[in-house]
């Protein structure tokens, strides 16, 4: 009862601190709930869509002539497979709309009873989906996002038999290939159109060029104890099922790719929230510590009246944990409508409407972790209460814990306010350690997110991470000879120096039985290698760290690489980072690919000295004029598409906004405590002739110093650790070594934001100084 009485009195007297802790807990709880719910809702939407569309356990796309009767028979008779569905497809790798090209493999399918469409707002699925009429097509949302298109636009498909225009009639729900993270796409057209086009393509096909195919959907039998990935591998090892395919994938694999960006973004934000959680604990510790110091006499009197240290410590525990509980509950309640509004924000990327779901269990666990951390911190910091002696407290002898440093910084006449502010810091360093740590954390995150944004917009950084950077792109119409490639280069160099010419092809090979993307490089030494060396001979390959981890292989090991039935042993010579298929790929030279009868048709990318668009346009025109029979040149696409850029901008805004908000709350709390502690000093300064504005400037300078030091610490940490941290967070997209490219603005902008926030907020909060009357110094 006595604790409750004191608790109520404390709340009345310290509303500011109480409300600040409530606010911090509210922000944490609301952010955690919203972020986790967005993720959960997106994942649930993907899972539901998989059920709704009867997505198979394994799907394999073939060119028709590669799907032999032998493979079909084998699959039909395998008891691990319950049923097989086969759909005819028309294959193309070029489409364009609104002047924009799409150059990934696309499968055009005939409408069937399983197709579903997204509603107009893209936040749900329509009940039925009529088959498209003649000249109409359904496309997935991920495709529309990439092409910046909308329903009603005209899409032109370049098929083997010619170009065909379609009107986009609806947005297809495609849990397999619909998301913007997957390059392959499938479209749905009406039966009549399909039959007509199939016949035309069949007529246009030659021995070298096949454009009709089949998608085989495999549904596992209940008795099959294998995972989908294991089953796919075994089917391939036993009968080369996927060796002959264009592409194959398991249900989990597509779910992984579809949810990938959601996972990455929410992970980055959750790491940030975890640090905000640490900030809440630091603020709590600081607040309690200051409270003990300023109420030393009160606690001494309470002890003299018989209050044990346990009761006083319980009072703190009750006070702060209840504030956190209130904040957490309000935060969760607030997040419910917020989740409803935001759960579908990733639909442009996943192409699947989210199904709103709040993971209350996980949220509760995280809030419980916050409580546990806070409780431990409170238990630790309130140990100071044990030292309070009633006699010392009542006699006012509290210096032992009041001043913790006597390091003198000189007081200067010219810089009186700043030098006094600095003295406040140097004589009470420990009081500002928490603030400094908080500033450093906020700064670190801002530097990290700025580095991320900078790197994504820096060609050299992307190149260093294994990406192909180019200004001019040429798609070959046949395998080009060395002489032809040289001629093309010479033509380009009439306009601009070529920094680097990339000749690459992406094909699926079997890697120890597993279908893995191979990047065939004409010159594999162009890539930066983390360890070992480039695969120079025809029996060598290099792998990514993701492959090394997944297959448990290392440099020096031998693996079996297969392509359309032909298999050979290859030696792993090095590791490098590649982002294709989220890092699940390997590198092989042209000679290496030819060893298993793969004559790769190289795409040509030219990274030029000049990135002037007009000049690049001239180069493209010149190439098409001169080499139009063997290549089709175009200006290279931007490396990072609009959707990813928008997401990075969103993360940047969220982290900066949260940092400003936290700065405000932290400054308010720390400044308020400092104000209470230094009330007498303020009165003294006023009595000697300082104006309130001088003293407010002193406060502001003090926080400016702390924030500057904190920003410097955070900046240094950011410089050395941002890349590593981002590498860990972005591992799931294949970035194992993030080449952070922080420039001056990556540091200067966050530092300016942080320091300015601290300066302005502390000046505003210190407005209370005006209320201090010199009369308070009078001893009656």
């Amino acid at each position, binding site marked *: 009862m006595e604790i409750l009485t004191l608790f109520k009195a404390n709340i009345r007297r310290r509303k500011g601190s109480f409300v600040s802790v409530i606010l911090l807990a509210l922000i944490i709880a609301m952010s955690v709930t919203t972020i986790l719910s967005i993720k959960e809702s997106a994942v649930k939407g993907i899972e539901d869509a998989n059920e709704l569309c009867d997505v198979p356990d394994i799907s394999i796309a073939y060119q028709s002539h590669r799907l032999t009767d032998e493979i079909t028979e084998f699959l039909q008779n395998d008891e691990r497979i319950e049923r097989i569905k086969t759909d005819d497809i028309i294959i193309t790798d070029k489409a364009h709309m609104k002047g924009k090209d799409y150059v990934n493999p696309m499968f055009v399918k005939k409408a069937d009873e399983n197709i579903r469409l997204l509603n107009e707002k893209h936040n749900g699925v329509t009940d039925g989906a009529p088959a498209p009429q003649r000249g109409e097509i359904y496309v997935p949302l991920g495709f529309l996002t990439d092409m910046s298109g909308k329903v009603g636009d005209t899409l032109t498909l370049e098929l083997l038999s010619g170009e065909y225009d379609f009107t986009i009639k609806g947005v297809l729900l495609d849990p397999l290939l619909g998301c913007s993270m997957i390059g392959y796409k499938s479209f749905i057209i009406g039966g009549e159109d399909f039959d007509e086009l199939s016949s035309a393509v069949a007529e246009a096909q030659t021995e070298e060029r096949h454009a009709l195919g089949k998608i085989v959907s495999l549904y596992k039998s209940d008795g099959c104890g294998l995972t989908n990935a294991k089953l796919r591998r075994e089917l391939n090892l036993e009968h080369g099922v996927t060796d002959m395919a264009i592409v194959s994938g398991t249900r989990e694999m597509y779910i992984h790719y579809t949810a990938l960006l959601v996972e990455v973004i929410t992970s980055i934000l959750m790491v940030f929230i975890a640090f905000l959680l640490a900030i809440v604990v630091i603020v709590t510790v600081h607040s309690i510590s200051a409270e003990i110091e300023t109420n030393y006499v009160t606690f001494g009197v309470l002890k003299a009246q018989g209050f044990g240290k346990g009761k006083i410590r319980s009072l703190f525990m009750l006070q702060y944990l209840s504030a956190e509980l209130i904040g957490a509950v309000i935060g969760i309640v607030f997040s419910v409508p917020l989740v409803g509004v935001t759960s579908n924000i990733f639909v442009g990327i996943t192409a699947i409407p989210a199904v709103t779901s709040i993971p209350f269990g996980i949220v509760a666990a995280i809030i419980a972790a916050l409580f546990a951390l806070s409780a431990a911190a409170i238990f630790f910091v309130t140990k100071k209460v044990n030292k309070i002696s009633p006699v010392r407290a009542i006699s006012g002898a509290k210096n032992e814990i009041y*001043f913790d440093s006597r390091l*003198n910084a000189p007081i*200067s006449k010219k810089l*009186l306010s700043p030098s006094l502010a600095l003295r406040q810091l140097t004589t*009470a360093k420990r009081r500002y350690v928490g603030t400094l740590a908080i500033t450093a954390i906020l700064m670190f995150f801002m530097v990290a997110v700025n580095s991320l944004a900078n790197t994504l917009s820096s060609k050299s950084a992307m190149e260093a991470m294994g990406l192909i950077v180019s200004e001019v792109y040429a798609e070959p119409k046949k395998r080009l000879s060395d002489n032809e490639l040289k001629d093309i280069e010479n033509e380009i160099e009439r306009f601009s120096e070529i920094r680097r010419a990339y000749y690459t092809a992406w094909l699926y090979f079997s890697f120890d039985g597993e279908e893995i993307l191979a990047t065939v490089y004409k010159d594999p030494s162009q890539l930066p290698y983390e360890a070992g060396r480039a695969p120079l001979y025809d029996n060598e390959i290099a792998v990514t760290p993701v492959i090394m981890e997944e297959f448990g292989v290392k440099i020096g090991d031998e693996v079996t690489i297969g392509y359309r039935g032909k298999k050979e042993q290859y030696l792993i010579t090095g590791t490098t980072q590649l982002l294709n298929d989220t890092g699940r790929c390997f590198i092989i030279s042209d000679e290496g690919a030819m060893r298993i009868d793969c004559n790769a048709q190289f795409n040509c990318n030219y990274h030029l000295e000049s990135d002037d668009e007009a000049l690049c346009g001239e180069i493209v025109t010149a190439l098409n004029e001169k080499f139009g029979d063997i290549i089709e040149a175009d200006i290279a696409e931007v490396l990072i598409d609009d959707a990813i850029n928008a997401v990075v901008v969103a993360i940047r805004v969220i982290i900066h906004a949260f940092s400003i908000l936290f700065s405000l709350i932290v400054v308010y709390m720390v400044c308020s405590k400092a104000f209470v502690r230094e009330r007498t*000093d303020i009165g003294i300064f006023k009595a000697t*002739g*300082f104006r309130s504005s001088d003293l407010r400037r002193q406060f502001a300078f003090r926080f400016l110093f702390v924030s500057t030091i904190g920003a410097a610490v955070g900046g240094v940490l950011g410089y050395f650790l941002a890349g590593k941290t981002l590498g860990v967070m972005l591992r799931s997209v294949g970035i194992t070594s993030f080449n952070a490219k922080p420039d001056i603005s990556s540091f200067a902008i966050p530092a300016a934001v942080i320091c300015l926030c601290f300066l302005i907020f502390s000046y505003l909060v210190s407005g209370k100084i005006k209320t201090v009357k010199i009369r308070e*110094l009078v001893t009656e």
Partner: protein
Amino acid sequence: MKNTVLSAKGLCKSFAHNGGQAHILQHVDFELYEGDFTVIMGASGSGKSTLLYALSGMDRATAGEVVYNGKDIVKMKESELAKLRYTDFGFIFQQMHLVSNLTLFENVAVSGYLNKSKSAAEVRKRVDKLLEQMSVSHIKDHLPTQVSGGEQQRCAVARAVINSPRVLFADEPTGALNRRNTTDVLDLLTELNGEGQSVLMVTHDIRAALRANRILYISDGKIIGELTLPPYRSEDEKSRETQVNAWLTSLEW
């Protein structure tokens, strides 16, 4: 005829109290003369400290005027009052009130630095001289918590006079000191007054009041008595004490 340094007319000060108003000062008229050592005495709660704070501009009067250099300080803005504090007025508190994280030297120097008319070097030179005069120069680099109460108060006196104020205000400057330190501080104030410094001090200590050449007695917010004495000489202390005691007794002290 002495010059008036500071004068007050109809000075009132009220505070909100228990839903009503407590009238601490009631139409006080007062004049402080140049070079005088004036003491205000009175019982606890009589309003003596309130009067001192109102006269020094540390607190604003509710009504009336306090004229200094022809200007009513009651109507002055905060910035004007602040300037007055570091140019013309010095103040000594009962509880010393030194800034705890500044050394004794710095506590004095900071007040000096506020005065734009002197260079930093001049201020430092004067601080050294004053601390020497106050006998605390040997501990000038100590923090207030590392020295005795008497030493702190001597430093506070030095701080109050660093800018050579025309008026030195002192609120019970010996209230927190032992007998020996009390004598030291009073000697310092007497010495400063002897050099021409106008002093206005509030005290309820008769021994402190003996240093004054003019004593005012305040009761219930009104000045009800005034005693004029010749300048202080230590050898006259006994007879002075008898005279002051008798006067105070007549005022029902």
